């Protein structure tokens, strides 16, 4: 079911549209800048040569998730639901 949903979303291009909407919202609410600042601080602290993308991801993922505003999550969820209802 999950797989099927994902496939339809990709095929119709809706997934890209939702992704773009999410990207826009995250920039608007300042999330992107916040996460960028967090990354910058970590890089500065450890030095750019002692840090792999994996380390950064490990450290930033939970913080980044927590910073996503509820309103953005809600909007996306509502959009996906609306799309699925319309599609079935």
């Amino acid at each position: 079911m999950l797989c099927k949903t994902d496939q339809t979303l990709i095929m119709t291009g809706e997934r890209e549209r939702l992704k773009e909407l999410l990207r826009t919202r995250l920039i608007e609410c300042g999330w992107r800048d916040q996460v960028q600042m967090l990354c910058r601080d970590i890089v500065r602290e450890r030095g750019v040569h002692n840090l792999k993308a994996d380390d950064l991801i490990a450290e930033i993922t939970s913080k980044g998730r927590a910073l996503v505003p509820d309103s953005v999550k809600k909007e996306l969820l509502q959009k996906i639901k609306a799309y699925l209802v319309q599609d079935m």
Partner: protein
Amino acid sequence: MSDHGCIHLNNFKAAKGIQPYRIIHTYFVACTTAEARSRKALACFCHVCNSIGSRLHSCLHCIFFGCYIGGHIQEHAKLKKHFLAVDLAYGAVFCFQCGDYVYDQELATVAREHRLKAAKSLGMPTVYHSWEPSRYEIELLRRNPRRRKLIKNTTVGLRGLLNLGNTCFMNCIVQALIHTPLLRDFFLADRHLCQFQDEPGRCLVCEVSRLFQEFYSGNKAPLTLHRLLHLIWTHARHLAGYEQQDAHEFFIAALDVMHRHCKESNPLPTTNPHHCNCIIDQIFTGGLQSDVVCQACNGVSTTIDPFWDISLDLGPSPNSEVESGNSSNENQSQSSDLQQQEQDRTSLVDCLERFTRAEHLGSSAKIKCSKCQSYQESTKQLTMKKLPVVASFHLKRFEHSNHFHKKIKTFVAFPEHLDMTPFMSHCRNHNNNNNINTFRGLNSVTVPDNRYSLFAVINHIGSLDAGHYTAFIRQQRDHWFKCDDHLITRANLQEVLDSEGYLLFYHKQILEYE
């Protein structure tokens, strides 16, 4: 980390070129065709555990997809000695020998091309990508190593303006314009292209651009606006002279001249030939819908006109109400008190409510209905079809008629945050425009957000003939300052909201991308 990849990626490119990357990217990262999309939909899962999320990567050497979180792409790399893989969500290349993602200019160019094409194939408007300095800009940065860092509570951007003799009407508007966030971004980014290259000193937009530089130079001494005043005198002759002018009139004249001066030089393609794309129109122009409904046949004729500001009546004046209303003397004082209170409670939202209410045009103003082809009584209703980025409200405090000129001092409450949704065309006249809702339903990738926040207020103190203008402006999101010609003093939000308010400037909180 450089953008020249790593030795392993370079060796791979030398042996096989960029074609393998190109193919993976166009089919599985940024699909540029419908065929690619359906291939991506059906083929993108981990070949070991079948998962679809979990950071799927594709091997750059052979046909293999594996997830990163489950460790399956790593296993594959180790087993087959295929040390390069492409992240299928973002298109970045992972080198297992370096143990990290590597960046290569050539591959990044391919990726950018594909992303643009992919967005186009889905009919999406231009996709956001962050600013990257051009070679010229890098050179500029190198040649000018001094950087100015903005700290919290900085007062950079604040400068007093000398009064040149009754020029406070201009000073207060300039303060409001200089502190309009989007306009500031435009000018500080040096985006104005002048169309009067061979006539220096003629273009008002250039002068405003220069003023922005002055305001943000860090110098705190008050400025004189003699050049701006002179340009306004030459381009808007009705404002020439040494007497006090109306700040609202100056605001509209300034926008008009700036709009005329940047009209020709705009490089952006316009979608509508009648619609100008200059910075003034992009920020200040909205669309006002006027629906005239024939009372005989209910036929609606709709027109949409552009606007730069909304002029609002403050409501029925207390004097005329008393005169026409109550004849018995004992109730008169009481009722006028009540009406005074009623007056005191009026607000910007009330004014907007009144402004967008359907209004009977009366029997003396019959209009020819285009549907039933006869002269009929009708109602007229104004609503917001398109909201501007900056909503400017003009409270009609100055009343001019043949017999008298007077100033209305009624207090009008205005909020820090304002939602314009109730005054939009599709909300206000739901009764006669059903088709708009269905249209919106189909097109609803983004929910329109019509919230605004206050960033400048212009006040008029004193009487009609001997008055003075001051401005409250917002700096750095929530610091307020009062600009009284050359004097700038700290203010707080409550003072701003308690002020009488003549012109109110609101900035859209969330910008839609066109």
